[in-house]
């Protein structure tokens, strides 16, 4: 396999890349709000920087001094040593041209060795452009980041439809870029009062130079929108439910538990649920206290989306299903039969206690 011969490729970092130092996180901020994934990345970036013995920096881009200052302050409290800021009216709304220009200029000026972004719509739109402009390597949707013995970034992600994991490296180019989906990494602890240095930078592009204009932004109405990423309890169903009608059983249990509900990718492909309710590597990564998986086989694409849950409970008729390998609690049963009974059990337990209390 040619890959294995490539795997033994030695690091032969060209001279001009050897000066690249420090770990950067491109902070995602839209309309003054920092996306939590940026803090998750800072937490991980801190570990990478410590291992490398270098600094951790955030990059905050926007149009408003106040929100940029607040964002920078938060970055320090989440572990950054420095924050590069770019403040310009041109950056009011995210646009590919302006943000790509801002970030690539910064990279070319200050030369970080590692650049991390969140794998959100914005992050993915931006990361591909930046990597192509810089002609460097970019590994997407990583589930794990580490520094290897030679000081290079080892980025791990699922491959081959999720059956296996692979570790990808950008040995001979800089910066080594990687994106991580929200909630894959844990939210780090916040150290109030921690601070660092702010380096304001100018934007090298003007509004006249930018062809794409944002005419409007229509915020989503919140009703019925899935809040899976931050839910404490999530109930999900898979193909083991056998039919779209049976998915109602998942919703029923979720309702009794005040939980969010979702499903595995095949259900989205079949149209049983909408894509915003997909749980898994290419859907939502969740970290609830309790996750109940009904009729889900547990392929790794799904696994990486739920591994951070405190308690994973699996219901499946197949005792050899992969999900039992990473769940803590399981029961070999037909989800279609068990879910209604489980809903009853919880409902009566809660009502009894409510009456008692």
């Amino acid at each position, binding site marked *: 396999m040619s890959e294995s011969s490539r795997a033994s490729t030695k690091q032969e970092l060209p001279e001009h890349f050897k000066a690249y130092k420090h770990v950067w996180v491109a902070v995602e901020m839209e309309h003054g709000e920092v996306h939590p994934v940026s803090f998750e990345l800072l937490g991980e970036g801190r570990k990478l920087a410590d291992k490398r013995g270098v600094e951790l920096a955030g990059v905050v881009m926007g149009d408003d001094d106040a929100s940029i200052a607040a964002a920078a302050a938060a970055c320090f409290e989440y572990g950054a040593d420095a924050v590069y800021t770019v403040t310009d009216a041109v950056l009011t709304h995210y646009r*590919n041209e302006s943000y790509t220009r801002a970030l690539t200029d910064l990279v070319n000026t200050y030369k970080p060795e590692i650049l991390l972004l969140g794998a959100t719509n914005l992050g*993915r739109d931006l990361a591909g452009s930046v990597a192509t402009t810089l002609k460097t390597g970019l*590994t997407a949707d990583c589930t794990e980041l580490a520094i290897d013995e030679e000081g290079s970034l080892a980025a791990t992600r699922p491959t081959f439809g999720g059956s296996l994991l692979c570790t990808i490296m950008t040995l001979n180019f800089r910066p080594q870029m990687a994106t991580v989906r929200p909630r894959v990494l844990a939210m780090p602890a916040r150290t109030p009062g921690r601070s660092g240095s702010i380096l304001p930078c100018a934007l090298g592009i003007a509004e006249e130079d930018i062809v794409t204009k944002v005419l409007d932004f229509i915020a989503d109405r919140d009703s019925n929108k899935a809040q899976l990423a931050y839910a404490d309890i999530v109930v999900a169903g898979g193909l083991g439910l056998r039919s779209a009608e049976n998915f109602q059983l998942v919703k029923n249990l979720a309702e009794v538990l005040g939980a969010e509900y979702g499903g595995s990718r095949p259900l989205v492909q079949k149209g049983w649920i909408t894509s915003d309710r997909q749980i898994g590597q290419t859907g939502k990564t969740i970290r609830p206290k309790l996750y109940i998986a009904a009729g889900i086989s547990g392929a790794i694409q799904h696994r990486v989306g739920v591994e951070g849950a405190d308690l994973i409970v699996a219901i499946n008729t197949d005792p050899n299903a992969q999900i039992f390998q990473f769940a803590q609690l399981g029961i*070999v049963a037909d989800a279609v039969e068990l879910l209604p009974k489980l809903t009853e059990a919880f409902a009566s337990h809660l009502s009894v206690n409510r009456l008692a209390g």
Partner: protein
Amino acid sequence: MHIAVCMKQGPDSAQIRVHPVTNTIMRQGVPTIINPYDLFALEEALRLRDKFGGTVTVLTMGPPMAEDSLRKTLTFGADRAVLLTDRFFAGSDTLATSFALSAALEKIATEFGETPIVFTGKQTIDGDTAQVGPGIAKRLNLNQLTYVSRIVELDLPAGQITVERRAEGGVQLLSTKMPVLITMLEGTNEIRRGSLADAYRAASAKIVTWNAADAGIADLTKCGLRGSPTIVKKVFAPQARAEKAKILSIEGSYGEAATALMQEIFTRQPAVEADLMRFASGS
């Protein structure tokens, strides 16, 4: 109006299995499919063609057998299919892929007409990186519009296009000048079923096949493994969790099993029980 659509074919990742003994990937007999996300891009391109007139060319980079998937795009009604295939492309990561595709797209524009719009799907089901579209946009200097959920307006004479783009927490209404690269969001349309005449034409159509030289690629160091800054260091199976799952069995009725399961959940996660009490009491 000439529109280009980039398509990728690959094994149906849902059917890929790992050989239980040798731990290698079993690709035998797994059908190759068109990346499902690309079908939304193709349908959008076909709709624009039907509305404004013109042709749709589908481009794919892949091994010779990718021809089958390309031919399938013709059954949907695409007018022309181009296969970019060469052993020099083997092992390409996303940077090398966008390099090769960009060269081919330039050739397509020269041979078959300028392309004010290049479509790609949101991402692939095997790579999932969503990087190649932006890579092409950067190389060909196309204005980049990703996660497009709807094309609102197209003013061909003025060369202006307005789209809705899915952002965090809402939808952006963006307007920009063509040429553009658009990555389509899934679920925005449904790929049509070609008529019998479409299917028949597709079956006997000639697929334009180019190697690196045909596509005008002079610098082979930018292709394949050599042109890929990322390398796969190792491939491995995930670790089984050290602590084994506690598996309950159904002793009596399902009702009893459900109660037992609930109790077990509360024992392990008392915080959950407390939260539920609060939720149930309405606080």
